């Protein structure tokens, strides 16, 4: 059942990836579009496919899988279905870095300035969290440190908006923060890919430790899980993936929360099985959302993060309702 689910999700990712390549304002015919992508005739079609649509579809897979996997890892570590990747404050800090780059004009000066500023914000957040949470200690100190960092990053982001010189600058920042994959290039893909690959490697290898944590921290420790090392690996893995995803796509909420929740019953609730499934599920969700923003309101530049939140929040209501019905809240 686990294998069939993964195969189904891979198939779904491939299908949606292809659809994502075929949707756009240029109005290319499907076969024409794919031939232009593969062969490359040096014409406008090839340019559209290779420089606009391919990076967009690749980034949707990359960002979606990062958010889904990071969410499943956070939930597995904290043993809480309401945990999400933003909880440790990395996405807020990455957004702050990006906002500062936009505000100061660095972002306009160089293509890489914004993602690099965002990644710097993520790194600073990780250092503060690790210093606050200490070398020994459980998940509670990590959550508290994350909340503190998130709050500070949010306050500083508000300060930057508050001090922005004109309404256009403020609007640019606000629109960036809504999250989007529009007008991204292959450079964005190559910036994010190594960090996300590293984070995926760190997190996907921890499956058994998350399984052991099903029995609680004490029992897991007695079964040979080094809790301090696991927490460090989790912070580095989540920060690497979410920091890179935020740097190239802005803040895209609810994916990391909703995807593990939807897939959990399908993998028998095993945290280790949920990791790869959520990575694929995240890619599916972000691909679908990114296709939807182009199809629903093609002329209005609907932001990806807005759509995921609009779809995600009701699913979250459902999660709370269901948890309450089971008498767990």
């Amino acid at each position: 059942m686990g294998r069939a689910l993964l195969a189904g999700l891979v198939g779904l990712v491939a299908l949606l990836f292809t659809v994502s390549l075929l949707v756009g304002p240029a109005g290319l015919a499907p076969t024409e579009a794919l031939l232009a992508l593969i062969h490359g005739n040096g014409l406008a079609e090839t340019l559209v496919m290779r420089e606009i649509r391919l990076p967009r579809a690749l980034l949707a897979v990359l960002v979606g899988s990062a958010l889904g996997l990071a969410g499943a890892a956070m939930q597995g570590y904290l043993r809480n279905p309401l945990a999400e990747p933003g909880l440790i404050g990395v996405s807020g800090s990455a957004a702050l870095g990006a906002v500062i780059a936009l505000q100061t004009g660095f972002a306009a000066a160089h293509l890489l300035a914004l993602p690099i500023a965002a990644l710097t914000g993520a790194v600073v957040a990780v250092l503060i969290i690790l210093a606050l949470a200490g070398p020994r200690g459980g998940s509670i100190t990590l959550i508290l440190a994350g909340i503190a960092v998130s709050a500070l990053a949010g306050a500083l982001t508000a300060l930057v908006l508050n001090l922005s010189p004109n309404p256009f600058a403020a609007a640019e920042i606000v629109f960036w923060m809504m999250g989007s994959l529009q007008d991204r290039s292959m450079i964005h893909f190559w910036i994010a890919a190594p960090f996300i690959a590293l984070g995926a490697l760190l997190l996907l290898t921890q499956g058994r430790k998350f399984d052991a944590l099903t029995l609680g921290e004490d029992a897991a420790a007695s079964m040979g899980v080094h809790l301090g090392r696991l927490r460090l690996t989790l912070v580095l893995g989540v920060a690497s993936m979410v920091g890179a995803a935020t740097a190239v796509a802005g803040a895209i909420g609810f994916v990391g929360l909703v995807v593990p929740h939807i897939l959990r019953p399908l993998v028998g609730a095993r945290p280790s099985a949920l990791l790869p499934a959520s990575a694929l599920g995240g890619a599916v969700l972000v691909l679908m959302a990114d296709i939807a923003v182009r199809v629903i309101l093609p002329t209005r530049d609907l932001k990806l993060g807005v759509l995921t939140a609009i779809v995600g929040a009701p699913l979250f209501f459902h999660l709370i309702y269901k948890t309450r019905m089971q008498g767990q809240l």
Partner: protein
Amino acid sequence: MTGLTLKDFSVARGPCDVLRDITLSVGQGECLGLLGPNGAGKTTLMRAALGLMPHRGVSSLSSLPPKERATIVAWLPQTREIAWPVSVETLIALGRLPHLAPGASPAPQDKAAIDAAITRMGLESFRKRIATHLSGGEQARVLIARALAQETPILMVDEPAAGLDPAHQISLMQTLSAQARNGDTVIASMHDLGLAARFCTRLVVLWHGGIAADGPPQQVLTPELLAKVFRIRAHVTHHADGPIVQPVGVI
């Protein structure tokens, strides 16, 4: 050599020692009941001996590398935690994690250990049920089965009988003493003096940071000790089934 050896073992919580200079050796074949009033340090002794909290002095278990230790001792904490709605079988299979090589899937001997643990705890009909949907006592039995499935020569359990109905309390204690008769070492913290007296081969009473008594149940559970340590009066008799201890009043 298996079993547990503690030498000059002290555990501090804040500025004061919870346990001071404990020296204790538990060998193979012993089913040791760890007794003491609330706060005497029963859980602390076991957690620190396992290396789950800092201590001074020597513990034969905490000095082992964590991975190796997990194949020698299984630990059942007092808080019965089941975080996710996994099946009973999946949960019990977690006991095999310390035995699996990285990336390996469960081998026939792992499946045999899981089946044996399920049978021992009488959970055959629960196999496919969702663990979090079971009652508290049923969950406790599933978690004990997880510890049994770990198939370690030492079993350390913190108040295993709490929350079980009388029949399951007795069959649990029979299971633990059978483990000990097979040559394993069982260390169980307990509050039920009657169960401890009947099923343990040896009782250790913790009191004021030290060992107040150590020996076979009938030697340890004297009216004087029960009055001094537990502040109770108890009716102690000997019966064909073993010693009977029934607390009857508070002093």
